[in-house]
């Protein structure tokens, strides 16, 4: 898959403090790429460098396989940190400025304002907006001209629960349209619902990157239950694919050698052994626990 953004040994120092240490990874086209890490891990610094507002101390990056230019940035919708607009101008006039800088038609403003549910407030001044409305206006600015690549840094900041759900759905819809989305967040539950790929940063160091399952070892397991638990256990221990069986209340947690177990096959096997399952569920480690496990391992 074509790489949209490619980082090579990107570093950033503020005096003696190293905010980013030789970070390299690639963002594949069409992915929803989560940049994860606790506060101060270097997520915003990294996005600031690739948006040309911060100057890297070392390393290089390319957009669409080419060295960065102002024309490329016009084709990328970026929300970095806070919504930045002229306080004395209305939503409409602010977006006219963004559209003119991006060389996009002002006719698209109505569409993006409706998309973020701000159309009715298009003539209100930015300074009169709530934090959530400001954030939605910034997302509208990103969507101007329907760019193929979107960069969102903490996009749900300041939004209420329904606003968070709306933005999450918007990201899913944009991804379904084939757009590449780079999403920096420390809210793992939020990322878990939308990301296909991740890069994990801790204190400026890239711990891991790749697709979500392999990068975070989000192994899956099965939970099985039957009216005859003894017979079920005897049947399961005979399977060489199983690595671990844990009794958990009225069912077993069963771990396999492969990361993604085949539940249908296990069901068929049990039935063949004369066991009728009354409970079968594929379980997956949450992104949060996988992330904590990974970052703890690195810290230790």
């Amino acid at each position, binding site marked *: 898959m074509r790489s949209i953004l490619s980082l090579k040994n990107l570093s950033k120092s503020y005096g003696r403090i190293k905010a980013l240490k030789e970070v390299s990874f690639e963002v594949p086209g069409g992915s929803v790429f989560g940049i994860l890490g606790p506060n101060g891990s270097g997520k915003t610094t990294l996005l*600031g460098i690739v*948006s*040309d*507002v*911060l*100057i890297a101390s070392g390393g290089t990056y390319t957009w669409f396989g080419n060295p960065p*230019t*102002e*024309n490329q*940035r*016009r084709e990328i919708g*970026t929300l*970095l940190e*806070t919504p*930045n*607009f*002229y*306080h*004395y*101008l*209305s939503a409409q*006039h602010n977006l*006219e*400025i*963004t559209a*003119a*800088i*991006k*060389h996009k038609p002002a006719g698209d403003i109505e569409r993006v304002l409706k998309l973020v549910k701000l159309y009715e407030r298009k003539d209100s001044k930015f300074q009169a907006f709530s934090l959530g409305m400001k954030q939605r206006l910034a997302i509208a*600015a990103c969507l101007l001209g329907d760019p193929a690549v979107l960069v969102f840094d903490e996009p749900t900041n300041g939004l209420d629960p329904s606003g968070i759900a709306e933005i999450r759905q918007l990201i899913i819809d944009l991804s379904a349209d084939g757009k590449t989305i780079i999403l920096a967040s420390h809210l793992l539950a939020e990322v878990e619902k939308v990301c296909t790929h991740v890069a994990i940063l801790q204190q400026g160091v890239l711990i891991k990157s790749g697709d979500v399952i392999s990068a975070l070892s989000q192994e899956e397991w099965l939970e099985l239950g039957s009216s005859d638990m003894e017979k079920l256990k005897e049947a399961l221990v005979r399977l060489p694919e199983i690595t671990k069986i844990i009794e958990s209340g009225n069912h077993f947690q069963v771990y396999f050698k492969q990361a993604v177990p085949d539940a249908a096959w296990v069901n068929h096997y049990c039935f063949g052994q004369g066991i009728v399952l009354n409970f079968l569920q594929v379980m997956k480690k949450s992104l949060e626990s996988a992330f904590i496990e990974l970052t703890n391992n690195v810290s230790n």
Partner: protein
Amino acid sequence: MGDFLNTMRVEWLKLKYYKTFWILLTVIAVCIPAFNYVIYDLTDNSFPKINGQNILGNPFSFPNVWSTVPYNAGILIFIPAILIITLFTNEYSFRTHRQNVIDGWSRRRFIVIKITEIFLLSLFVTGVVVLTCLYFGFITRKPMQPIAGWEQYRFILFFFVEMLDYSLVAVLVAMLVKRAGLAMGIFFLYLIIEQFVVSLGRNKYKVNWVDYLPEEVSDRLIPQPFARRILSPGNNVFWEKHIPLYLSIAVLYIIIYIFLLSWRFRKSDL
């Protein structure tokens, strides 16, 4: 060219609905003629006349008016400086200087358009000065009196240089300090300190390098116009002789300011 016009359009969109911009522009357009009128009234009515002639000469008549009005307007240069600092620090306080770059401007484009804006504002203020000169020149004009020659028109060019010089210092301070109030405070403090050093150097220590300090050298392009022949008869020849040097140094400062602005904005984190 189309690209540059689009960039200009963006700057226009920023200013079009900004009330403070229009208020300060109106203040400039009103204060320059009004302040000159106060001085005109003072010189016309408050000084003794000898044989019907004002002791200060006819500073508001052609051709003297071409140096009198720019000199007086020079005293008010702090008003456009306030506007310039406000416009520039707005970008920092709203963090829109970052957003403009994120959205697709190069850093170079951002700073070039800001410097262009300063040139245009300086042209506007110079235009107000020209109109004020014409107004006073015509209301005091005697029959057959010539309007002016190059000798007098050059003061308009000198005022433009002086205006640029002060404006670019204001932007430089705004860029370094980033906050409007503090930037204005430092800018005015800088002007006062420079004047203090110039007075001390010239009058107490009798050194002439103080004449070439950044703002003083552009001030010296337009000497005080009142009763020059009486108050400083020898200075005219000295001034004429030094004009090319003053002008060259003032332009050199302008080039240095533009270089520093551009270098700082392109090489630092936004």
